[in-house]
């Protein structure tokens, strides 16, 4: 039941955004993708979600290629929680969350009064925001709403692009605890993050990306060391020691 990438590459405008990425994400693991800005973390998530197509290589889940899967089926299997940005049309929160059911029912609005929607919003502590407009929320509140929308898809694979960015410490911990519960229930969770403390505290598997290439992927304990982090972010070890505490 692994999600696997095989020699995944993406070239746009002659620029290599991702090169030869072969990874395996397993159930029961909390996967974190780390890397400096522009390393290709968000791009990799877009490829995994099928939003962008790779130039070469493939993605398989349960041994089957995702390439020719109908869009709705793919959406029921893999969902991406994007970095939350304001949208052009200022929908109500309950509308945005209900849109997560589109892949099951094109008339997604029938889910607005469903227990599933309440459960999803309660899970991210956003039930009280349901009648608010999405653009009136803070970045962190919007982030929680998008996670609730991803819960509505009931997909076994959840991808999150910097899910804790903009969240206060309480909500960071709550979201991480929620993701841990989802993993315990059998979901594959893959998140990108710039927060080394979050990655070290919660993830069990880490993947390092730099300039579109994979520097390493494996268990947190063996891979996340001062040397690898210094190499990943092009920092001196002294500077790293001064600013970041490792276990």
């Amino acid at each position: 039941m692994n999600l696997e990438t095989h020699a995944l590459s993406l070239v746009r405008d002659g620029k290599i955004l991702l090169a030869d990425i072969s990874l395996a994400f397993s159930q029961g693991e909390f996967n974190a993708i780390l890397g400096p800005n522009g390393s290709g973390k968000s791009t990799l998530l877009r490829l995994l979600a099928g939003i962008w197509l790779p130039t070469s290589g493939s993605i398989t889940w349960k041994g089957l290629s995702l390439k020719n899967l109908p869009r709705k089926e793919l959406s029921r299997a893999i969902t991406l929680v994007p970095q939350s940005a304001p949208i052009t049309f200022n929908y109500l929160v309950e509308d945005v969350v209900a849109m997560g059911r589109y892949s099951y029912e094109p008339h997604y609005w029938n889910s607005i009064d469903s227990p599933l929607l309440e459960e999803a919003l309660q899970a991210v502590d956003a039930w009280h925001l349901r009648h608010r407009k999405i653009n009136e929320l803070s970045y962190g509140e919007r982030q929680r709403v998008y996670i609730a929308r991803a819960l509505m898809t009931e997909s076994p694979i959840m991808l999150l692009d910097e899910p804790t960015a903009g969240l206060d410490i309480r909500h960071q911990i709550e979201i991480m605890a929620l993701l841990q519960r989802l993993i315990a229930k059998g979901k594959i969770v893959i998140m990108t993050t710039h927060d080394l403390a979050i990655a070290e505290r919660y993830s069990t598997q880490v993947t390092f990306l730099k300039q579109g290439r994979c520097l390493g992927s494996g268990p947190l304990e063996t891979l996340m060391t001062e040397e690898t982090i210094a190499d990943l972010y092009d920092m001196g070890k002294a500077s790293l020691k001064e600013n970041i505490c490792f276990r």
Partner: protein
Amino acid sequence: MIKPAASSLKPFLIFALILTSLGTLLYGATPWNQVWTSALERLQGISDAWNPLLDERLPRLVVILCTGASLAVSGAVMQALFNNALASPNVLGISCGGSLCVVIVFVLGLHEQYPFVIPAAAFTGSLATLLFVYSLSRNNGSMELNTLILTGIAVSTLLISIQAATMYALRDHWMLIQSLTEWEAGSTCDRSWRHVHMQLPLTLIGLSGCWHYRGEIDLLALGEEEARNLGVEVEQVRWRLFLCVALLTGGALAAVGLIAFFGLVLPHLVRYIQGPSNRQLITLCIVTGALSFSLMDLLLRFFEVHALSIGNVSAILGGIFFIILLRRSRSSYVEKAA
């Protein structure tokens, strides 16, 4: 501000639409008793004389309702599809493309022998321009929102210039120029069943398509990537909606002519009243578009404004609203930057 639910608004709007429709049918120079009697005689086969109700007011009403609904819905769909509040068939030059093709049909004299070439040309021109503007605005597989409006303005300016040059070259053919000027001004006068036949099928298909995809339109308004993420077959749905918009724009062009800014303004007014949800917006745009257009036509007839066509009035009112909208969006950008 608490917005009224669309469900509570619809009965009121439908009632108002029925009233204005009745006004269009009842109001006219010929006394109603006389109109009604001769209409009954026609329907019973006693007489086949020309009747103001059956031969003028009824087709005019159908054309007006179709045009109002078509323009409002096509504007709403384009704003959602292009994720841009300033998009509309007119602003993006789509109407100009359809219009140029109709002008070519007039110049070649095809419209007299084959009247159905007009809607075909209007549809083809609208669709071709839509695809052209869309492809020019895309960069690297994603839509450049700021580029879209500028591309639309550039393309429409080019098309208007070609049209103006064509008309200048033909300035000595005064009968042709007169019919083109009347058509360009967007008029609802002297509409007949021929116009209904040209427009109604296009409108029905276009409106049905947009209404069918109202849920997808909601998701597409989040942006292409988000729509794809949530399960929308973006390319397939977008292509079908492009066809629907071209059918609606082409139908309105064929039957009435150029109506500027109506498609831009109406969706904004409806959003202001009931909120941004497109699934309700499409339905409400059908009703409010038809209502506003028929009301505008009725008022022009009632006050006997002969100097201006409905297209002129729509362009003037819509232009003022467009300026207000631009100022509002500019001030919101300033707020964001600050």
